[in-house]
């Protein structure tokens, strides 16, 4: 009984002492000592923590690099895919712009009916200026039909198969078109060349032709409808000793960038060859 009492007394005394110390500490009486203690504790914990973190990094880093590499490859693939999509969309935007221009052109020229076609190839011979389009007799395309873009005349159908046609460009050396110079109010003949340059010939010496004059088809000869834009005069060569003036022409169409063209399907060329007098 006495032992039990003395043990309880010891416990009570210990609790009182610890409680007193705690109360003193909470009251700020041990601030310098507790600061030193907690400071050392934090230092030790920091040291241990950094070492543990380093060890953890050492063991887990290879796995992270592998996953990062995989992720990087995934992202690179995604970037490539998106870049391809951007290029495709950009191409579609360009096509849409071309088509919109062609639709505007066909709306502003309602007297003709048009059939749009894509340029899919060129003549294998560099001496000839022909392109191949992806519309043929199945689409109502016939030989002799004029072919235009929203910028102006590019040529006419030379040969047709079921699903494709060959177009002779106005730049072809064999091309010859009757044209009208709007400002000078005179007619002339437009001729292509092997270099792709276009020139005017047979301009009357009486006509006053100046650079910038607009050139349109005249409709003479029945090969082309009238008033299709061809280009502008760049320079004029006039010599007194020659019968006619000549001029260099800047075509309205950029023949290096032909993509989509319009075939005028309601025009039928007139064959005037029986009316041309033959020499006896």
């Amino acid at each position: 009984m006495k032992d039990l009492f003395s043990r309880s007394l010891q416990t009570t005394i210990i609790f009182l002492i610890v409680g007193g110390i705690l109360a003193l500490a909470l009251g700020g009486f041990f601030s310098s000592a507790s600061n030193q203690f907690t400071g050392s504790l934090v230092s030790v914990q920091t040291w241990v923590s950094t070492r543990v973190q380093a060890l953890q990094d050492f063991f887990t880093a290879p796995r992270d690099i592998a996953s990062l590499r995989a992720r990087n490859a995934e992202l690179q693939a995604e970037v490539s895919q998106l870049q391809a999509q951007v290029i495709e969309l950009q191409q579609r935007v360009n096509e849409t712009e071309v088509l919109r221009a062609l639709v505007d052109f066909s709306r502003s020229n309602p007297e003709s009916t048009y059939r749009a076609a894509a340029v899919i190839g060129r003549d294998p011979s560099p001496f000839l200026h022909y392109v191949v389009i992806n519309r043929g007799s199945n689409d109502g395309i016939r030989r002799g039909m004029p072919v235009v873009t929203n910028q102006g005349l590019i040529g006419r159908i030379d040969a047709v198969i079921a699903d494709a046609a060959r177009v002779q460009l106005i730049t072809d050396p064999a091309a010859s078109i009757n044209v009208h110079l709007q400002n000078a109010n005179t007619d002339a003949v437009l001729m292509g060349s092997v270099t792709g340059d276009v020139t005017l010939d047979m301009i009357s010496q009486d006509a006053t032709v100046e650079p910038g004059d607009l050139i349109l088809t005249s409709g003479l000869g029945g090969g082309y409808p009238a008033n299709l834009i061809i280009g502008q005069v760049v320079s004029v060569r006039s010599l007194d000793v020659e019968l006619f003036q000549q001029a260099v022409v800047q075509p309205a169409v950029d023949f290096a960038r032909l993509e989509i063209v319009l075939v005028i399907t309601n025009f039928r060329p007139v064959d005037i060859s029986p009316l041309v007098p033959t020499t006896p």
Partner: protein
Amino acid sequence: MRNLIAFPLIALAVIFQSAVISRMTLLSGYADLLLILLAGWALQPQVRSAWHWAFVVALFVGYLTKLPWPVTALGYFAVVFVAQMLQRRIWQAPLLAMFTVTFIGTMVMHLLSYAALFVAGSPIPLGDALGFVTLPSLLLNLLFAIPMYTFMRDLARWVYPGEEVE
């Protein structure tokens, strides 16, 4: 049987020529892929079908071009003729033979085209034809000649296995 590769290969080359090579111009000239393909093929010593290939090339190209078919056929047959003649004489230097055939073939083909256009009534100034078309085309053909020769050599080994002539 493996010689039948000529049809898809030549068809592909014609499409490539018309859609791609014809847009890669130097002045007004561009390379003739079919010509150098034929030259490369005809120069392979084990090849015995060069004339057939020339016929197929002429058939495909004649279908596409405005030039009269006999002109293109004659031009490509001339390429094979020159190639086989040179192949027997300078077989030790195949690349030299390839360049020579390409040079002569291009000149013959352009001369025939020029003559055909002249006869058809659309004469071209000779200076323009030479300076703006023939010489640039020749340069491009010579540039394509080496890779084409290598390709045709590998193809010949595949078509004629075990018949390689050293």
